[in-house]
């Protein structure tokens, strides 16, 4: 499943917030979207899962324009993992995952054996078998995240969208979640806060600032100190994570306005 | 998702609809007009609410005298009992304060259906064949239900004529009620006798008071501290006080009862204040309020302590009205009655 975004503009009250966005996600690739708060990360993601309609430009999923297909069809192709949770209403983990079947169900359809198998399988894949009857509200942050990923799996979509999946998680669950997503092998677009996680897991990243894509490419090539300084306003240096072999960034506040190396 | 659920619900609904279809049309209607009988004109409410407007008039033919009448409200009960009809009654309801002592024994021989309005079921349970009501509220859904529904069940109903009309209430309405009721129950001589005795009672009072000269200004005080509730132009009280040669200071306000304000009372300066004695507001409470309130101290009636107490049930259109006229006249012109 590939995603191609061309010439996308979006704004509110006549003022554009996203300008001329061009992006693509290759089949099976894990693509990260990074940028400071307010840069438009969330808005861009919301355009992709149709919560917002672009003013102009195209979003194509496997060549089909996103707005040419029905919202149910879009939901069959794209699954989203958000930080939303039903606050006052309690669902079991099973029920949450079963909501992923919604895009596949017509009004008069009932649940059937196949649905059960799909849901069970989704729970297995995220390692949450046995949690089916647990109340979602009582799960830990990491467990909740995995259930939401399982929901995406039961949607049987081949494109996964994640909005800052590691924000509120303990470090262990951050890494476990990203490992899981990576292992799933679906085409993935994820907004990320943590540049090191982006470097560790993403095949390609896009850097967005002020509603524009300012850089794209493999993380080690893109996330260099000058760019980081310009976009994030901090000095940085790069060395290597001895365990994984991937580059890792170190940050410091540059009070003198000089570039550090 | 449970397969059976929608079908169960739809099944229940189907049953209900079926019942609704077959339940609708098997009520016996009152046969009117064809058989010979006594035709009486009365009105009927459609909303079961007292209204400023007239209720539509219709006439009903009684082929035989009812034998299981139910009276709702005190004045209708007393009227029937005064005509000696207690053995044709199956129930009474909603007494305001107390039944006249001379009628007590007769009253006790008839079952009391409720302290206020009984529900429809209770009324039907009395197997009644005639309902005589004193206020339109007796025909609310939570009381006897609409008169049209009762008619469908073969139960004719009669509403006090004073309520039927838009024009002011007057004693004549009572005479007409007595005439109608006595015709329906085939006791016309008793009815005529009652009317005659009421007229005589009133005559004996009005003859003693001198109608010439400016009528005394009177104010009826029912209840209310912040704003007084009083009788206005077209209530029975206004007619009664006129017969007692006085004048209701609010007889220019439309309707039968209204909430006015103390400023108006002060400005219109009544010379005598009639205090209603009722369960919801005693005369003593009102007197205390009037005499301890400095804003009201300069009203002539308060300065001179000219108060007349009267029971609420006496000024409702009914057989107590002659006695009410006497009470009012004696209270306003005590000299004429010594």
């Amino acid at each position, binding site marked *: 499943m590939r995603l191609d975004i061309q010439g996308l503009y979006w704004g509110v009250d006549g003022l554009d917030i996203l300008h001329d966005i061009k992006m693509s996600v290759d089949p*099976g*690739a894990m693509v990260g979207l990074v940028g400071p708060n307010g840069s438009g990360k969330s808005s861009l993601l919301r355009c992709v*899962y*149709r*919560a917002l309609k672009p003013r102009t430009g195209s979003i194509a999923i496997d060549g089909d324009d996103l707005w040419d297909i029905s*919202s149910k069809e879009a939901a069959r192709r*794209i699954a*989203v993992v*958000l930080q*939303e*949770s*039903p*606050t*006052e*209403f309690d*669902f079991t983990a*099973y*029920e949450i995952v079963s*909501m992923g079947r*919604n*895009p596949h169900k017509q009004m008069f359809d009932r649940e059937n054996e196949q649905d059960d*198998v799909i849901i*069970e*399988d989704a729970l297995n*894949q995220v390692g949450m*078998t*046995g949690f*089916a*009857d647990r109340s979602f*509200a*009582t799960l830990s942050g990491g467990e909740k995240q995995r259930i939401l990923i399982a929901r995406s*799996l039961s949607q*049987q979509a081949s494109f996964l969208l994640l909005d800052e999946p590691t924000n509120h998680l303990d470090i262990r669950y951050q890494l476990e979640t990203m490992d899981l997503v*990576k292992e*799933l092998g*679906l085409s993935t677009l994820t907004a990320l806060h943590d540049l090191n996680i982006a470097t560790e897991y993403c*095949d390609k990243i896009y850097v967005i600032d002020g509603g524009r894509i300012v850089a794209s490419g493999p993380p080690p090539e893109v996330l260099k100190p000058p760019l980081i300084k310009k976009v994030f306003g901090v000095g940085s240096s790069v060395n290597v994570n001895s365990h994984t072999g991937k580059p890792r960034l170190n940050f410091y506040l540059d009070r003198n306005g000089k570039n550090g190396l | 998702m*449970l397969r059976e659920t*929608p079908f*169960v619900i*739809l099944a*229940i609904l189907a049953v*209900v609809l079926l*019942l*609704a279809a077959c*339940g609708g049309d*098997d009520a016996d209607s009152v046969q009117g007009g064809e058989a010979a009988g006594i035709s009486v004109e009365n009105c009927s409410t*459609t909303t079961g*609410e007292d*209204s400023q407007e007239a209720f539509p008039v219709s006439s009903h033919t009684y082929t035989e005298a009812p034998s299981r009448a139910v009276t709702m409200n005190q004045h209708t009960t007393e009227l029937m009992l005064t005509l000696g009809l207690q053995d044709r009654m199956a129930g009474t309801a909603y007494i305001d304060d107390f039944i006249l002592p001379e009628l007590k024994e007769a009253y006790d021989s008839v079952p009391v259906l*409720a302290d206020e309005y*009984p529900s429809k*079921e209770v009324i*039907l*349970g009395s*197997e009644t064949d005639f309902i005589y009501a004193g206020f339109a509220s007796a025909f609310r859904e*939570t009381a006897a239900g609409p008169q049209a529904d009762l008619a469908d069940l*073969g139960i004719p109903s009669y509403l006090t004529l004073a309520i039927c009309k838009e024009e002011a209430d007057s004693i004549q309405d009572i005479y007409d009620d007595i005439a109608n009721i006595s015709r329906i129950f085939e006791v016309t001589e008793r009815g005529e006798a009652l009317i005659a005795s009421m007229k005589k009672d009133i005559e004996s009072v009005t003859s003693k008071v001198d109608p010439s000269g400016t009528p005394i200004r009177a104010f009826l005080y029912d209840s209310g501290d912040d704003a007084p509730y009083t009788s206005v132009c077209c209530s029975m009280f206004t007619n009664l006080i006129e017969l007692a040669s006085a004048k209701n200071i609010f007889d220019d306000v439309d309707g039968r*009862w209204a*909430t006015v304000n103390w400023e108006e009372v002060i400005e219109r300066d009544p010379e005598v204040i009639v205090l209603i004695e009722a369960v919801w507001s005693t005369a003593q409470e009102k007197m205390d309020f009037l005499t301890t309130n400095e804003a009201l101290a300069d009203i002539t009636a308060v300065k001179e302590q000219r108060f007349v107490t009267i029971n609420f049930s006496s000024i409702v259109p009914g057989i107590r009205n002659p006695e009410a006229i006497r009470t009012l006249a004696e209270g306003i012109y005590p000299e004429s009655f010594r």
Partner: protein
Amino acid sequence: MLGQRSRSANVVEGIPLPSTGATSASARRQADKTRFLLIGLAIALVVSVTMAVTIGPVYISPVTVWNIVLSRLFSVDAGQWSQGQDNIVWLIRLPRVLLAGLVGSGLAAVGVAMQATVRNPLADPYILGTSSGASVGAVLVIVLGLNFFDPYSLSAMAFVGAVGSFILVFLLAQSSGRISPTRLILAGVALAYILSAITSFILFMGDDRDFREVLFWMLGTLAGAKWEFLTLPAIALALGVGILLLQARSMNALLMGDETATALGVDPQKFRRQLLVLAALLTGVMVAVSGAIGFVGLMMPHIVRLVVGSDHRRVLPASVLLGAVFLIWVDVGARTVVQPEELPVSVITALVGAPFFLWLLRWRKSAFGGDRI
């Protein structure tokens, strides 16, 4: 990194994977438990109807009651009883019990729908100001005597008031074409205040005696139940509940949040609008026939959720059935507690409802932000 470990692809191709079965077993257990509950409720409903018809201020033996019903249904002569008894059972009690069932179901269903629409379990059918609007309609008839639709004036005006207020709330809550749950609640509250003020004003201008009748209406009564008043609520209920049942999955998605709902293929704005229209119409019909009966729409979904969870595929049918049973018995109370007089229905539902909420607050600590123990 480009590993294709998409096991779900296998399932799509129709090759079922050997699952441990644990999850499906639990799903089946949950389905069985719910089926058991629904059947139980349905039986309780039938039993309630049968028993409620035998209870009333006038004593009629149960056997006589059932004989009367049977003879009216199947035109057989089954015994001796008076015309009064016959009328009481067939023309007063039975339509009343059935209407109680219909209204109870309808209000419960709307309660579920409103709670999903504003994503708040404290919502009830009247948060859009429908009961205040209906009250305005009612006082216009009772106090000002606007009897255009005789003999159905009261019901018709109540319906017009209810739906009218919904339309106003709907328009007020819009903001660049979108409606958020919060705006909806705010608009509803504001309008309810305005309409209550209008009602109070008209009421005060009228006769004192009108107070009692208006109060009775506002607190709800089923005393006016007649066979011909059953058809419209029955149809409205069937359609309303039917539509809601078909949308149960979408309602689940709506509870997760607008963003998630979108991601699952539900258009939250459009869906919310549809739910609101349905809720307004169904509430309007119920209020038109019985006045504003409170608490049912609020409590039934809560009680049901305590037992079956929040999945609407279970919550809806269970609430509908429980609502019917509940109101049938509440109405029995309204007929008998102060016999031979009538008590307004909401007095009883409030007496039951208030302790219920206190209990919820005290014993269910995990609900509504308490400690999650």
